[in-house]
């Protein structure tokens, strides 16, 4: 589904990503973790072309992201993305947040888009809030709406960029529950997150990044059982102390 | 385009234009200094706990900010000269246009300066006044020694930007037939039938001066942001 092949990126002389390669197969859940500044957010933004990269290649469903001839908007409409700060559109009601892209990008009718939006809103347990505005919801609720908004587009895969790190601790689980459910239904997912509980529960593979390099790329059990790099061992030990 | 440019009347007129520029600068500098002083007073009055004083300052600022500068200058060109003459028993032929222009600009600009300064004073945390009082300072001491120095530091770029605006606005004294830089350029252009060239020249001079100054202000702002 997603192929990342020897991707490198730098801002001026600062190297953000170095020779990153990995694959996410259809139906697979891959968790990307690592200390802050390790390049994991940048990597996931490269996957749908939100960040340009200078070397290497990324393909999603066989389509090259870096190719200037690719219609990026069309590709992005098929890849769902969830952001750290939710990024709901504050001037629109929840319903409009869910339907705007369906109408303007996919060309669905207003009724169709609203119906689909409500169905997914119900799924994340927020149907009662359909007519509210984002600013009137809690962080956890906003993030669930953001997931529903991405799902409205019938994505072939989902990208999560630290979806719980801006949330108060008591709201993290409501968001993780939705993500776990999604994973169990067979959605292809690439998640940048520090939630190791989530990784243990649903991940097929775990990628560990440090200083722009993919240091570990292993099955879940191998990673949690015996990470072979010292840096990953330190990282896991630190995470456990929290 | 079939206009034949002829820039030859500019070199000879340079001394006259320079005299005009001196008038423009003179008005700007006077109005900036007086505007800041009077504006600071107005801002302090407006923030003062004595209600009538605060009302007076608010009324003054709002009135001047809601009428056009042109209108203020018309008042000062038509009415203030008479007042000045009768008040100081001046000879009716004394030229008081420059003086009234300066007073007009100063009174007008002080309303704008007062708003900048008020925002600056309010940007200083309330705890600073409390700390100063705790040290035994009076209100005016706290203002003078603690609040204003901090406020002015933050305001310098805004005050300078306002000075650039004021410098541009001084071109309006053209209405009183006073030969400031723009008035001088217009006169030369009119005399030689070369208005096109003189107006373009005046525009270019203003642009170079104001653009350069605004770049200096921008650099200053950046440097202050990093300190």
């Amino acid at each position, binding site marked *: 589904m997603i192929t990342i092949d020897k991707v490198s990126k730098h801002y001026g002389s600062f190297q953000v990503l170095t020779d990153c390669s990995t694959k996410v197969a259809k139906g697979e859940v891959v968790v990307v973790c690592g200390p802050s500044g390790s390049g994991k957010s940048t990597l996931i933004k490269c996957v749908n072309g939100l960040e340009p990269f200078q070397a290497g290649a990324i393909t999603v469903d066989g389509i090259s992201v870096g190719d200037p001839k690719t219609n990026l908007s069309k590709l992005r409409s098929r890849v769902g993305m969830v952001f750290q700060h939710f990024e709901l559109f504050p001037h629109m009601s929840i319903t409009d947040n869910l339907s705007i892209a369906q109408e303007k990008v996919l060309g669905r009718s207003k009724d169709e888009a609203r119906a689909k939006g409500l169905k997914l809103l119900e799924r994340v347990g927020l149907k009662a809030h359909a007519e509210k*505005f984002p600013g009137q919801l809690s962080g956890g609720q906003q993030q669930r709406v953001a997931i529903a908004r991405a799902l409205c587009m019938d994505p072939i895969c989902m990208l999560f960029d630290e979806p719980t790190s801006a949330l108060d601790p008591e709201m993290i689980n409501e968001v993780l529950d939705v993500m776990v459910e999604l994973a169990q239904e067979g959605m292809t997912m690439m998640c940048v997150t520090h939630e190791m509980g989530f990784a243990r529960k649903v991940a097929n593979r775990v990628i560990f990044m440090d200083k722009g390099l993919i240091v570990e790329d292993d099955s879940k059990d191998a990673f949690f059982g015996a990470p072979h790099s010292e840096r990953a061992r330190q990282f896991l030990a630190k995470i456990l102390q929290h | 385009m079939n206009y034949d440019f002829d820039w030859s009347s500019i070199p000879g007129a340079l001394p006259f234009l320079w005299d005009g520029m001196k008038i423009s600068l003179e008005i700007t500098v006077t109005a900036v200094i007086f505007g800041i002083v009077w504006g600071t007073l107005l801002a302090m009055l407006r923030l003062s706990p004595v209600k009538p004083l605060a009302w007076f300052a608010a009324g003054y600022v709002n009135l001047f900010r809601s009428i056009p500068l042109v209108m203020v200058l018309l008042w000062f060109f038509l009415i203030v000269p008479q007042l000045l003459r009768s008040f100081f028993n001046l000879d009716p032929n004394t030229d008081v246009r420059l003086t009234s222009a300066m007073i007009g600009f100063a009174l007008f600009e002080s309303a704008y300066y007062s708003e900048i300064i008020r925002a600056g004073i309010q940007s200083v945390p309330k705890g600073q006044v409390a700390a100063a009082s705790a040290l035994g300072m009076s209100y005016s001491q706290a203002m003078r020694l603690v609040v204003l120095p901090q406020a002015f530091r933050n305001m310098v770029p805004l005050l300078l930007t306002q000075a650039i605006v004021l410098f541009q606005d001084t*071109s309006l004294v053209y209405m009183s037939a006073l030969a400031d830089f723009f008035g001088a350029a217009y006169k030369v252009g009119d005399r030689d039938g070369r208005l096109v060239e003189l107006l373009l020249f005046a525009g270019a001079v203003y642009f170079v001066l104001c653009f350069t100054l605004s770049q200096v202000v921008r650099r200053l702002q950046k440097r202050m942001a990093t300190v």
Partner: protein
Amino acid sequence: MSYQWNWSIFSSPVPTGETTYLGWMLSGLQTTVTLSLCAWVMALALGSLMGVLRTVPNKWLSGLAAAYVEVFRNIPLLVQLFIWYFVLPELLPFGLGDAFKQQLNPLTQQFLSAMVCLGFFTSARVCEQVRAGINSLPRGQKNAGLALGFTLPQTYRHVLLPMAFRLVVPPLTSEFLNIFKNSAVCSTIGLLELAAQGRQLVDYTAQPYESFIAVTLLYVLINVVVMSLMRVVETKTRVPGYMGSK
């Protein structure tokens, strides 16, 4: 000093007899309002376009918009007005300038020059406000729009601009007020707007105080009306749950 106050001057007929001095004053008010509104529409359209260009990821376009702003901000309004009115008609190609000077009546010439001048002058300020509005939005908003499959223009249209415009209503209010005040500068090319009518009244009636007080009050009135209008706009466009609103 003895000054003979005479407020009834406004109801006396003007020398040509077709209206009263009050009529002059009102026609001046009408010109000021029409001129300012036309120029404001132009400034909003041009300023928004330039404001968007200043934020696009293209060096040439954003540089062009930046230069535009600098030109209109660093030349005095009066000089700009004279250039539009006296210089431009001389330089227009294909006889357009001659057409402007010979076929349009002088009043239309003055009005057009004044409108274009105020429009461009104010658009540079609107541009800066729109740019500031767009830049004050979280960076993720643009990414969120793009990630949903919007093209860059769609992202501006549906995501960035609606929010940016709401944020800049207060600063745009003060630009809107400024355009009415700045329109008084246009009396210098002979346009008979409010300030010019006030001046004319002084010449004809020798009652400067009444005339100037009336004009000053009318400007204050415009100010009050515009401010209350914009307050309504601000309330109407307020986003629930966002910044100080409920």
